[in-house]
């Protein structure tokens, strides 16, 4: 039989590794965001910022990191976007900003972190979406493959997880490339 020593769990059911921090410019924004997020059923916590956070006010909101995309979408809609969103375990970590580009001749593939999008250059048709591990990836692929870049929904609008967010960044980079053709 195997024996486990699990990493410590926080009181509200999430482990440290599953949590992120929202940093805001001032306390009113923190209060507004807290109210909006709690009203929408998110499990969050207002707390003091860790020492690594050098920007923002003296309160931050702890949230389930996997839902970062959903949360940022709501806060942007309400006009109170955070100035930073970082993982609790690595407040200095930044979302992926390194893109891998592969040119297949008639097709171009862009990878951001674990997500890839491939487009036919002549038609700008999305021919494949691959990678990722969260359940919105197959859903996003269903919604996007077979549509042109102009017709396809933006993963940042309909995705829910960090994989969806990464695909959104690859999509954005692809839009940039397409505009140069």
């Amino acid at each position, binding site marked *: 039989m195997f024996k486990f020593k*699990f*990493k410590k769990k926080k009181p509200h059911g999430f482990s440290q590794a599953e949590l992120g921090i929202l940093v805001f410019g001032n306390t009113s924004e923190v209060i507004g965001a807290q109210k909006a997020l709690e009203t929408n059923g998110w499990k969050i916590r207002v707390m003091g910022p860790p020492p690594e956070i050098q920007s923002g006010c003296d309160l931050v909101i702890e949230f389930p990191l996997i839902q970062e995309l959903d949360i940022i979408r709501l806060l942007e809609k309400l006009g109170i976007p955070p100035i930073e969103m970082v993982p609790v375990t690595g407040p200095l*970590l930044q*979302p992926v900003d390194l893109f891998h580009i592969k040119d297949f001749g*008639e097709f171009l593939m862009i990878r951001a972190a674990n997500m*890839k999008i*491939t487009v036919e250059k002549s038609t700008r048709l999305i021919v494949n979406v691959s990678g990722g*591990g*969260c359940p919105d990836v*197959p859903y996003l692929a269903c919604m996007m493959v077979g549509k042109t870049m102009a017709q396809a929904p933006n993963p940042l609008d309909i995705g829910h997880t960090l994989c969806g967010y990464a695909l959104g960044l690859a999509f954005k980079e692809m839009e940039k490339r397409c505009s140069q053709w």
Partner: protein
Amino acid sequence: MLAVVGTVPDPDFPLAVGRVDMVGDRLSIDGKHIWVNRGTPALLGAMVNTLKVLGQKDIIGFIAGDIGLGDGSRKVYQYLVENRFQMDFNAIVFHYLQPDVDWHNKILFMLNDLGKKPVLIADAGFMYAAKMSGQAQAYDLFTPDVGELSFLADEIAPHPFYTRGFILHDDNKVPDLIGRAYLHGNAAKNLLVKGSTDYIADKNGVIFSVNSPIAEAMEAMGGTGDTVTGIVTALAGTGMSISKAAKIAAKVNRIAGFDANPTPATQVSQIVHHIPQALEKVLKESYDQ
């Protein structure tokens, strides 16, 4: 019996538990039908077609609809924990599921309590949760692609989205990333790293690498990693050693992909069709040797 735990991208698909069969291009489970496409359906399709050659073993699916909100994943997790008495499998693979460390830990405790421990394989979201929980070593096999291997190699990244640039960088060689993942305890007992070259590794390093035949377009195709995970699960379920099963699976997936003559626009169901023939070829070569 083999078990597959995963999701399908349909918010209205209810929790379905039962034997999985394939009729034409569609999978059936508990009276419901699913097209073979990227994600858990591609993994299931590959398993069904692998078992056509190996001899029939039942695949029991634990599947729910989930489009990223985690609701379907939680239904599956809850069902597994509440119905632990039904868990009598040779191998079990956890796939496209919402990463959730708390549920992951409950599942692992449940598996630990079983009289007979199945071969444990994790890929996709459940593999992310396994790494985050600090329990990667409880698994017999992880099947990451290179992007996911970078995440396993980054001891502080909570998700591939936050993998640090110096680890993601192209200059990093896969064997180094494998070493780094084991150094920090973030790899399963075995790894099958899917990519332009496939690597089979354990804590001592790379055991095999497979780099032919090569169909470059497969990198762009969604689901080609899911098929290899399905093939290795079916093979490991026969009692074959994990490293041998992984080596055969990598070869079979490459041959099936090559035989499909893919472009970056080809869909994964084309590869699934070619799996039985590719497996027969690889098994024959392996017997001849």
